[in-house]
């Protein structure tokens, strides 16, 4: 459906954020992919004739790119998932002091319920610590409108603004009004070291300004257009924001509601006034009691986390049950086998893990599809913390237990994650005399988030050809003497190389290459088929969790031809030669 100004279209939250940024006249956007924020940049690129957008190697770089653009007087943004905000925290905490020239917006995407994340942290607390305002929309249309308001607030108060979303908002759709792009003039760049060079003397003065700024925003919040009071029945009053507002409206359609568009700093006068007009005040917010704690600190009685959890997503039923004690009737859930996510058919990570399992090595893991190597039946990956941590934790393990011990371990990291923050960790291994082995599982893409380009793919977000970082040469340049490139599906060679490199008393990098089978450029070699005469029902082929393989009625292996990508892993591991590859012509 076309996005003509004046039209109404149904739009994903993330697409609406991109639309809002476009309409706000944004000129520079930088991001690193991360669920649930990825589609913001993927939608922003639709407007590439009128703005610049990029995938940066990590969120810190993305934030700094946006800051640079803001210094020069244009509207700029960075978008990232909640844990990415940690990576970007360093520039964020200080640009809060400098403030902005062109409007500067950070979109932080939280993940209550951990649909695709390693923790459930609340970005509002990060913003509170960084002393920057947070605004929070509750559906796609508000996401579009609030994005524009975010740039205005940023320029009005000389502050970076966080627009906080959650998975449910980012990945739900509703009807959005399309408007014209605003014609925003670039602001002139004026040298001002007292504002833009944060060394102690200057920062001291700016810290005073930051406190004044927050107080002013708190006062102005009384009449801020995105804070809305809906008085109805005043027996129950609810203070809420974001997607929980929708659950409140569904569960308590007659209650009075104070819907906060700005959730930090909070509008004290508005909240006191609302509290005085309702009999019982509830605060409904997912994750941490960010609003509740402040309200209670002001001496206002309210009910919040006493009856609501700090974990996971909320829902209308949950609110109904907690506040008015009602639940709809429903059947008991059936007891059924779980269906956890698994590596795809033809995934090269499976091939690497099959050898690691055979050699009984332990894996220090990282963030990506390959984290799935932790679960049955692969069960090789034993630790995973954050982006890039596989390499540095492996190094720490060696320093704790010695170089003989670490011969039984490897670090496994994807190509995009390696370029994100793995490179620094690898420098450390070279510098501090590690002897560990790092396997870079290079599938030529950022896999889990849906195939975004990165610095080693040769293409930009704006679909231009570009310099392609050579990971082999990069490792060599850092000072790794032993760098070996292997085909991830050449199992015999892979086994030989992993054995040799883990035995070596020096740091090594093995680059196991093979394209992600979901990438659109991927061409399957053919389809694997089982010869039922030769199959001895040993189950060996099924021990690596390929979704295309299953046990037949008599225990024989059966390959689903519509799912098989012809990687040939099952064929290589079959002890009876019962599987063959029918090659595509």
């Amino acid at each position, binding site marked *: 459906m076309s996005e003509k100004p004046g039209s109404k279209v149904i739009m994903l939250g993330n697409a609406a954020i991109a639309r809002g940024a476009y309409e706000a006249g944004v000129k520079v956007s930088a991001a690193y992919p991360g*669920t649930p924020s990825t589609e913001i940049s993927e939608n922003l690129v639709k407007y590439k004739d009128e703005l610049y957008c990029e995938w940066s190697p990590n969120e810190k770089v993305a934030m700094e790119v946006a800051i640079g653009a803001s210094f020069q007087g244009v509207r700029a943004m960075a978008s990232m998932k909640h844990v990415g905000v940690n990576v970007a925290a360093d520039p964020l905490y200080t640009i809060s002091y400098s403030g902005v020239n062109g409007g500067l917006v950070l979109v932080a995407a939280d993940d209550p319920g951990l649909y695709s994340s390693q923790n459930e942290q609340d970005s509002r607390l990060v913003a509170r610590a960084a002393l920057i305002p947070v605004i929070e929309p509750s559906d796609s249309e508000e996401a579009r409108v609030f994005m524009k308001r975010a740039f205005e607030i940023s320029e009005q108060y000389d502050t970076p603004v966080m627009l906080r979303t959650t998975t449910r908002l980012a*990945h739900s*759709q509703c009807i959005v009004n399309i408007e014209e792009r605003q014609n925003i003039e670039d602001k002139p760049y004026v040298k001002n070291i007292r504002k833009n060079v944060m060394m102690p003397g200057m920062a001291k003065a700016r810290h005073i300004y930051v406190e004044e700024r927050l107080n002013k925003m708190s006062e102005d919040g009384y009449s801020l257009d995105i804070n809305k009071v809906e008085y109805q029945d005043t027996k129950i009053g609810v203070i809420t924001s974001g997607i929980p507002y929708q659950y409140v409206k569904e569960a308590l359609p007659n209650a009075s509601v104070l819907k906060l568009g700005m959730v930090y700093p909070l509008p004290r006068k508005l909240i006191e006034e609302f509290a005085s007009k309702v009999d019982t005040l509830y605060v409904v917010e997912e994750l941490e009691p960010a609003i509740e704690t402040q309200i209670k600190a002001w001496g206002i009685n309210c009910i919040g986390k006493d009856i609501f959890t700090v974990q996971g997503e909320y829902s209308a*039923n949950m609110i109904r049950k907690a506040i008015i004690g009602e639940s*709809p009737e429903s059947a008991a859930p059936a007891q059924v086998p779980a269906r956890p996510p*698994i590596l795809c058919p033809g995934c090269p990570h499976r091939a690497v893990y099959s050898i690691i399992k055979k050699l009984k090595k332990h894996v220090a893991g990282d963030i990506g599809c390959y984290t799935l190597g932790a679960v049955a039946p692969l069960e090789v990956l034993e630790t995973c913390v954050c982006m890039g941590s596989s390499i540095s934790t492996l190094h720490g393990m060696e320093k704790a237990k010695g170089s003989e011990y670490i011969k039984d371990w490897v670090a496994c990291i994807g190509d995009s994650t390696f370029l994100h923050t793995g490179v620094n960790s690898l420098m450390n291994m070279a510098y501090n005399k590690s002897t560990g082995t790092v396997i870079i599982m290079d599938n030529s893409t950022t896999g889990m988030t849906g195939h975004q380009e990165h610095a080693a793919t040769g293409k930009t977000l704006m679909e231009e050809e570009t310099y392609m970082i050579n990971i082999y040469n990069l490792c060599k340049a850092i000072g790794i003497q032993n760098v070996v490139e292997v085909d991830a599906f050449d199992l015999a060679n892979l086994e030989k190389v992993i054995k040799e490199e883990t035995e070596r008393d020096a740091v090594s990098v093995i680059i196991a290459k093979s394209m992600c089978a979901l990438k659109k450029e991927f061409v399957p070699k053919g389809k694997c088929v089982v010869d039922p005469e030769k199959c001895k029902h040993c189950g060996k082929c099924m021990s690596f969790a390929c979704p295309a393989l*299953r046990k037949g009625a008599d225990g024989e292996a059966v390959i689903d031809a519509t799912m098989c990508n012809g990687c040939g892993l099952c064929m290589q591991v079959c002890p009876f030669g019962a599987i063959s590859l029918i090659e595509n012509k």
Partner: protein
Amino acid sequence: METKSIMIVGVGGQGTLLTSRILGNIAVKGGYDVKISEVHGMAQRGGSVVTFVRYGDKVAEPIVEEGCADVLIAFERLEALRYAHFLKKDGVIIVNDVRMDPMPVAIGAAQYPENIIEDLSKTYKVTSLDAKSEALKLGNARVFNTIIVGVAAKSMDFDKDMWIQVIKETVPPKTVDLNVAAFEAGYELA
């Protein structure tokens, strides 16, 4: 109109997102307020996935909860069983009669339940079909989901031309003819 709540469940990679977009767009065309909620990211890697479509005069909540769904569209039998308790008492199930073993079953750690469709039929109005075989008749197994949309369309209040128009506007341009044929096939089957 009271808000209608539809769930589409399946296995990551089966195309639940395209189906929810078709349903969302038909509701927009019908003049309703609409909310859709999807799952992206890790769960899509062969995991159990669920999308929600709600439409009516004014829709607040974008998700469908236990005991609240009017229609459950399941792209796989086990997934129909997993989410059946989300239905209202008189809820409708449209299920693709296909078995895809989840990993605990494939490695022998769990049993795939028997007689799912028979059991569900005792409580709910169930329509089952082998959409993959029907899709193969059209020459492409991947359009099974649009065949199921065709089946579902028969029990919804939008006219057939409007459906076809929406499919043309929603599916990738190169696949329009195939998807329209798949929709027609499903519509005839219902």
